[in-house]
């Protein structure tokens, strides 16, 4: 692959924007309300599967299928949250880790519905190739044609997609930022600091935690749907727990306590993740390409550790606030 290829970087930009939306969902849950969600990927998976199944098997229009995907993510949040949110935060961490894996294993083992380990392409059984994003590509093409008439040159699908994704990310961050500074956000931040104190202040803490979990699930579900539409196929392996930690990494890189740092975190993460693909010079070229692929994950991990040690507030975060003890 060529470093200078704009098509590649456009694709990276799309993925970075989608990961930004994913991280924003986690921001609402973890940074704002203090809910340790270690199964964020499950919301993405459930939404993507619900959307694809409805399109492929029931010929549902994409808009309805997408909305149904978000509803599925909300239902999953309720199922995980109703028992776990009444308990201490640790139990939510356990419930979400388990929930994420349960979703993945279900997808793997219900081949008639999900296509099993083959993924979305096998949803119609062997011999039939199932595609769910035809409607989306037609939609993108319509925008391209319109832009072409307006501007002259016709932009690529990824260019249109990148613009859509980043515009959504900015609008969604603005909304979350507004909520964070509202009285609702004040209660959520209070819960993050000390749940017991917020109960004593007369707030129904379980209800507030549920709202944060559901809002984060909707954003995670949206990211899952966009990612599925962008790539075109997915399989259970695409929803491994690693993806949740990418979301944490984006929050940590940008700044744990700043919603507006998420785009920066997403870009930094994507540059690292995609950029380390090009670490094929000496002395790294001593490793064969298969080992270098692991080296990349190692470098991402080392960077995470370095950030936690030397700059826990991320690039843009508030250090004083972060270092105060709870």
């Amino acid at each position, binding site marked *: 692959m060529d470093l200078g290829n704009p098509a590649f970087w456009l694709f990276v930009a799309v993925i970075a924007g989608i990961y930004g939306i994913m991280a924003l969902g986690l921001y609402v849950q973890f940074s704002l309300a203090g809910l340790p969600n270690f199964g964020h990927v499950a919301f993405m998976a459930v939404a993507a599967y619900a959307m694809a199944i409805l399109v492929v098997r029931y010929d549902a229009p994409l808009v309805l299928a997408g909305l149904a995907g978000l509803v599925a993510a909300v239902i999953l949040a309720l199922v995980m949250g109703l028992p776990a949110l009444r308990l201490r935060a640790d139990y939510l961490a356990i419930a979400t880790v388990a929930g994420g894996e349960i979703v993945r294993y279900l997808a793997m083992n219900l081949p008639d519905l999900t296509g099993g380990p083959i993924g979305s392409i096998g949803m119609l059984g062997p011999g039939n190739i199932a595609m769910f994003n035809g409607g989306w590509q037609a939609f993108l093409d319509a925008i391209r044609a319109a832009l072409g008439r307006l501007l002259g040159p016709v932009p690529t699908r990824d260019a249109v997609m990148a613009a859509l994704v980043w515009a959504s990310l900015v609008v969604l961050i603005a909304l979350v930022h507004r909520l964070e500074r509202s009285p609702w956000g004040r209660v959520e*931040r209070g819960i993050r*600091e000390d749940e017991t104190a917020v109960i*004593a202040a007369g707030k129904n803490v379980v209800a507030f935690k549920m709202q944060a979990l559901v809002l984060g699930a909707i954003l995670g579900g949206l990211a899952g749907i966009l990612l599925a539409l962008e790539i075109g196929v997915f399989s259970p392996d695409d929803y491994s727990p690693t993806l949740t930690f990418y979301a944490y990494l984006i929050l940590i890189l940008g700044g744990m306590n700043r919603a507006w740092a998420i785009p920066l975190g997403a870009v930094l993460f994507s540059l690292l993740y995609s950029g380390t693909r090009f670490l094929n010079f000496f002395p790294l070229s001593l490793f064969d390409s298969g080992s270098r692929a692991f080296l990349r994950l190692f470098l991402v991990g080392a960077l995470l550790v370095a950030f936690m040690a030397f700059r826990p507030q991320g690039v843009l975060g508030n250090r004083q*606030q972060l270092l*105060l003890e709870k």
Partner: protein
Amino acid sequence: MLLSVSGLTKSFGGVRAVDDVSFDVAEGSLTALIGPNGAGKTTAFNLISGFIRPDHGSVRFAGKPIAGRRGDVVARHGLVRMFQTPRVLTRMTVLENVMLAAPDQPGERLAMPLLMPRRVRRREAEIRARATGLIELLRLGPLSNAFAGTLSGGQRKLLELGRALIAEPRMILLDEPMAGVAPVLAGELLGHIRTLRAERGVTVFLIEHGMDVVMSISERVIVMDEGRVIADGTPAAVQASERVIEAYLGRAQSPAVAP
């Protein structure tokens, strides 16, 4: 009676931490709950304020049964508690800490800040004004925009008092307000508790170990030992009670049993 507790019981494993406790607290009074360590005072507070569910017994506040209700529901009824170790929201400012506890902010419903920003902003301005007033009153004014995590122990107690007051409670439960507070701040805190009752008519019910404080400010003292109420009356009457002296100092061994 503003608060009446009857037959309140709570066991942890085999230990009856609170055992068939009954008492009343009159509206506008300043009542103290005392007793040796492990007597069940804090557990009684937790049961009354809804932070622990009782096994048996009833709690009525302003005529309404509140036993077994959630802590936030009890607080919204006007029975607000404070904690032995102050619980402040460390990574939020002093002002935010106080504003958080204000009642009736429609903006706490998720969609409201986006749908009805004006109504939310109007109420927010009222809350900010009242919170600022309380912070000035508690002499935390210069710290208004500091993170609460930077405050000293005594300042945190004052902040917690401010958070309790903005909820406009009818009754306030204080768990050892003077413990671990520097003498100067303790005096200030005591002054605030007095004015609270005198000027706002708030009923005060407090756990305290400092006997001079208890005897000087409270008009009624309830004494607990081993989960039970062993005395209930004026400070003078309680001080004279043999059961109370026994609980605090131990029983004098009778000469016949002594070797």
